[in-house]
């Protein structure tokens, strides 16, 4: 067990719960290029986070499979007070689009903590996005919902 405390089995269970069959006959698409802000007090693995940038693009099929990319940089601060950005590069494997216009997708990612340690591969993640917000579960750690402050997220 590494310091991120992998919980792959739990994430797989989460993914299966969040993969209902969409009603749309054709692939849905989720894209985005944005900046978003976390609520105060947000932290990941002890790193305080103020926000993130994201770039994402994928197709989600009606059978719950998906293919695409999720990339995020979590903007944090180290214990020394210097910037520490956590980079998440994920390959999307499953997803769905909800009736409320939100989308949920999941897969595995490579996570670079930005502290000089080697990036960790195979980290499960799940994301729920709407036009104005993003919720990220990374390695079974659910971060508070981030609010989009610049750019946009598109679900169609």
């Amino acid at each position, binding site marked *: 067990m590494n310091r991120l405390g992998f919980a792959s089995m739990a994430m797989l269970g989460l993914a299966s719960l969040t993969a209902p069959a969409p009603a749309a006959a054709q*692939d849905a*698409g*989720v*894209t*985005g*290029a*944005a*900046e978003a802000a976390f609520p105060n007090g947000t932290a990941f693995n002890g790193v305080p986070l103020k926000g993130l*940038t*994201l*770039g*994402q*693009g*994928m*197709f989600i099929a009606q059978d719950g499979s998906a*293919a*695409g*990319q*999720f*990339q995020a*940089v979590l903007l944090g601060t180290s214990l020394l007070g210097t910037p520490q950005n956590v*980079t998440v*590069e994920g*390959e999307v494997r499953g997803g769905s689009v909800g009736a409320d216009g939100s989308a949920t997708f999941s897969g595995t990612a*490579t996570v670079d903590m930005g502290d000089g340690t080697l990036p960790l591969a195979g980290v499960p993640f799940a994301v729920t996005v709407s036009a104005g917000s993003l919720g990220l579960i990374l390695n079974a750690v659910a971060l508070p919902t981030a609010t989009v402050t*610049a*750019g*946009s*997220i*598109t679900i*169609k």
Partner: protein
Amino acid sequence: MQTFRRTVALLIFPAIAWLGAACERETPTEAAPRVEATVGGPTCNVPAEYPTIQAALNDAGCSTINVAAGTYVENDTIRRTVTLNGAQAGVDARGRVASEATVTPLVVATATLTLQTGSRRSIIDGFTFLGGAFTGPSGHNGAIESITGPIDSLQILNNRIRGFIAGSAVFLNDNGINITVDQNDIDGTTKLGNADLFHLDQDNFDGFRFTNNRVVNGVTGNGFFVDGTRNVDKSTVGARTPQFTGNFIDNNGTGVNLGRLAWGDGPISGNTFSNNVFDGLQGGPKNTRISQNSFDGNGRSGLALTSFGNTTDPARGAQNDTITQNCFTGNGFGFPLLGAGISFSATQFPGTISSNVVHQNNIFGNLPGARYLGTETINAELNWWGSSTGPTHPSNLGGTGDAVVDNGPLLPGGIDFDPWRTSAAGGTPCAPPAPPSGKVTGGGQVPVNTNGKGSFGFNAKSDGGVGSGHLNYLNHVTGAHIDCTVDLVTMLTTDTAEFSGTCTSNSAANATNFTAHVEDHATPGKNEDVFRISYGTVVNEGGKLISGNIQIH
């Protein structure tokens, strides 16, 4: 006997004509019945009334001669105005399979049909001219040949000319304005030697129209040749605008050679110049609109604008031409260091080659797309070079389209290709090949400005050439943000895709459309994959990924 025949004809013809007209009135929706005249004309029949074509030609009363299907071994001469109809008169010769009136030369080295003074306004329609070895003193005699003129308003229509082993199919060597050559099929498969399949000499051919002909397989010479001093234009009083339109010029040595300064004032449009060993079309036309042609697979250049090396005569060479809405594809591979889709001579009189303009053409898949090694500036803006990134050129970093070869940017002059089209030009005879069906997705960051970052996310799909998808992009330095719909996927290979569409944006971006070029080289894509985007006034922003990935599925 001939006098008697003419007398009978004079009595009978009006009655037949009246009967024909009466029939036409009773059945107005049907074509007028063909007048079958008797011996002496004005309509004469071969061989029913005259055993040979020449026999009918010798009868001045025969203004129209109908030649039935069959083989005629003779050398004929026209010395007066006559309409000479073969069995397929009025029927397009291209690809025709039918019962033919086939004329084969009795003396194989003499023209099958010779035109002499008096033959102006004659019509030769619907024959097959087969065989011959037309080896006159110049080595350029033809199956149809003029030896004295004028031959004004001559019409050569719907004829098949083939099977000759030397000389030309048609060799016109005398003045003749307003000549029409239409819907003929000229095949030089059996020809040896360097004669041209269709040859116009240096006489006055103002108002000449060469339309809808098939000129093929003259691999040892030119498919079409003319040389002279603007001897094919409209400068003669009464001359029409010349035309070279709708022809198929394929598999010749050079497709068409328009000489140093022969052609002017008339369009060259709707032709196909393909698979010729050297150039598809070469020479020095003037005041000519070259449009909607297909230049494909020619060994050297598709179109070579040239004075053939003359730098001292301002009248020579290509000048004041507009080249637009053509397709240049697959040219130059036979002569990689010499040819191009379109080439501009560096050895014309100063100021002439740069008077030509090249706009709204599709130029892709050539080696290279364009070539000019002179010091003038050629206006070749707003062409499609096969990529939204523009042509490959040292001054266009990131350009992946057909190469432009010139002396720029180190030396003055060259080919001005900027701005270029980011999608194929419309109204051309071709479109770029439809991209295969497939998908591309991506998300990540790229470098922008200086030490800045831009985030992107997109999905794009090509389904039978129909593009769809979405793209979001945010420049974190300038704040420029675009939210775009993918309308068109212009290229999709195993590692490269290009797509474009319409956008909404914030004021920092001020863009209504975008084009993106992406490359998938590795997973993850950091330092490997490429994302470049153009929007508003921003061109080719981005580069290799800082993080993230691009995947072509």
